[in-house]
């Protein structure tokens, strides 16, 4: 029995690491780390929404993330405020209203710490199925979106002038981030979701010569962080989500001197 829950945790963590890595590369390339954060913070509101409507939390989270993404889209067009200010407002407003909404639901037992920081060791069969589905959706969508999304990332107007449906591609990307957030929440929690997107991708940069290499290396690093983090969590009884993030951060720190040597090496 103890074997099984460890294996489930490992599978869930690896699944989330694999789907976060390629998306995280785009988050880093498009300078959208704070956008990812704002979406993640709105996930708690999604949980409340799910409980209220009797839906699966995952669906509630995807809905809340999309709502916040669309709100940001609208505000960017109409407001004089800079995007980082708008994100600061949205992100914390979403987190705070999520906490407030959950506090009204006395009758539902909500594991707040688990939502905020993840509870990998409590992953059940249903959670694993959701993560598997999310992984499939993200990878299939990215297979089709990879080239156009890369073109839009390099220069949106140029991509539009060359006939790509830029707005639709952007929207699809945001939807994928929402799906990733919902999946990653169980593993590292609302407050740490962005770290799985950003840290492995940033670590991979120094070792990659093209976009695909960067995504693959990020995936490998993400899996390593999950394995080390989960191992440490079991060994020293530390919280699993934060342990995984610490492992990812350590890999990043380790990559700095290694990356320098790599950059200097003749190709």
């Amino acid at each position, binding site marked *: 029995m103890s074997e099984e829950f460890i294996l489930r945790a490992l599978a869930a963590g690896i699944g989330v690491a694999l789907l976060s890595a390629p998306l995280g590369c785009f988050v*880093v*390339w498009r300078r959208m780390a704070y956008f990812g954060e704002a979406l993640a913070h709105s996930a708690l509101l999604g949980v409340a929404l799910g409980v209220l409507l009797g839906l699966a939390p995952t669906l509630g989270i995807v809905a809340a993330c999309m709502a916040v993404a669309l709100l940001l889209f609208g505000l960017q067009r109409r407001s004089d405020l800079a995007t980082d200010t708008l994100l600061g407002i949205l992100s914390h407003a979403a987190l705070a209203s999520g906490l407030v909404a959950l506090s009204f639901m006395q009758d539902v037992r909500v594991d707040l710490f688990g939502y905020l920081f993840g509870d990998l060791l409590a992953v059940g069969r249903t959670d694993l199925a959701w993560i598997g589905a999310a992984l499939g959706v993200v990878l299939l969508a990215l297979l089709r979106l990879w*080239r156009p999304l890369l073109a839009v990332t*390099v*220069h949106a*107007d140029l991509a539009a*002038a*060359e006939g790509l449906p830029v707005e639709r591609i952007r929207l699809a990307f945001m939807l994928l981030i929402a799906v990733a957030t919902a999946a990653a929440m169980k593993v590292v929690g609302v407050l740490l979701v962005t770290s799985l997107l950003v840290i492995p991708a940033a670590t991979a*940069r120094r070792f990659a*010569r093209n976009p695909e290499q960067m995504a693959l290396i990020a995936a490998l690093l993400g899996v390593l962080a999950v394995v080390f983090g989960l191992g440490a969590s079991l060994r020293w009884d530390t919280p699993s989500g934060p342990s995984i993030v610490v492992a990812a951060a350590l890999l990043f720190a380790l990559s700095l001197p290694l990356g320098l040597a790599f950059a200097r090496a003749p190709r």
Partner: protein
Amino acid sequence: MVDARTLIAGHRLTLRLGRHLVLNGVGIAVDAGQIVTLIGPNGAGKSTLVKCLLGLLQPESGTVERQPGLRIGYLPQRVPVDPVLPLDVGRLLTLTRRASAAEQRGVLEEVGVAHLLRAQVSELSGGELQRVLLGRALLGHPDLLVLDEPTQGVDFSGQSEFYRLIARLRERHGCGVLMVSHDLHLVMAATDRVICLNQHVCCAGEPESVRQHPEYLALFGPRVAANLAVYAHHHDHAHDLSGAVAEPHE
């Protein structure tokens, strides 16, 4: 279409961005094989007009006409590629269309940077990047090149060489060119028609006639206008990217 030779035309284009009237009843047309240069002070609406013609912005009123099946090669004002994105020149060329390695090398040779095919885009100099982007535009066999300040980031000695490159490409491919520029004196020599824009079309015509137009003089001042006379000399030699005198091209 006004004329069978016209590649693209805008009629009475009006556009507001926020509260600012950026374009006010602007008319413009580019014919096949013609080089048309848009000049005007900062904020005159030059890039906005270009984006209207490309369909990236919708005008409030007015119409844009394109020759059916028109292929456009576009060079935006700035294409900043973040160093965090590992991307080599070959991948940049093929972001939105497929091209064989030979085709990629071919267009880069035409713009004089074939050696950069495997270079990382974020490590290119301003002038190298502009050449690569120009080569990228050629990959689509364009009938019309739309170049928004193509010599931005090109060092001064390389600028006139860059304009001569554009003129050569026009000759070889027979494409029309619509170009936005600040380099008045450099552009005047290599252009068929100049349109001076300041929300509306101040004046338009051959370079020589625009140069003497009172509205043009009022916009740019007599000193800049007088400088043109100095720079309107005939070139008997060319400069390469580093500024050294180069062998004349065929």
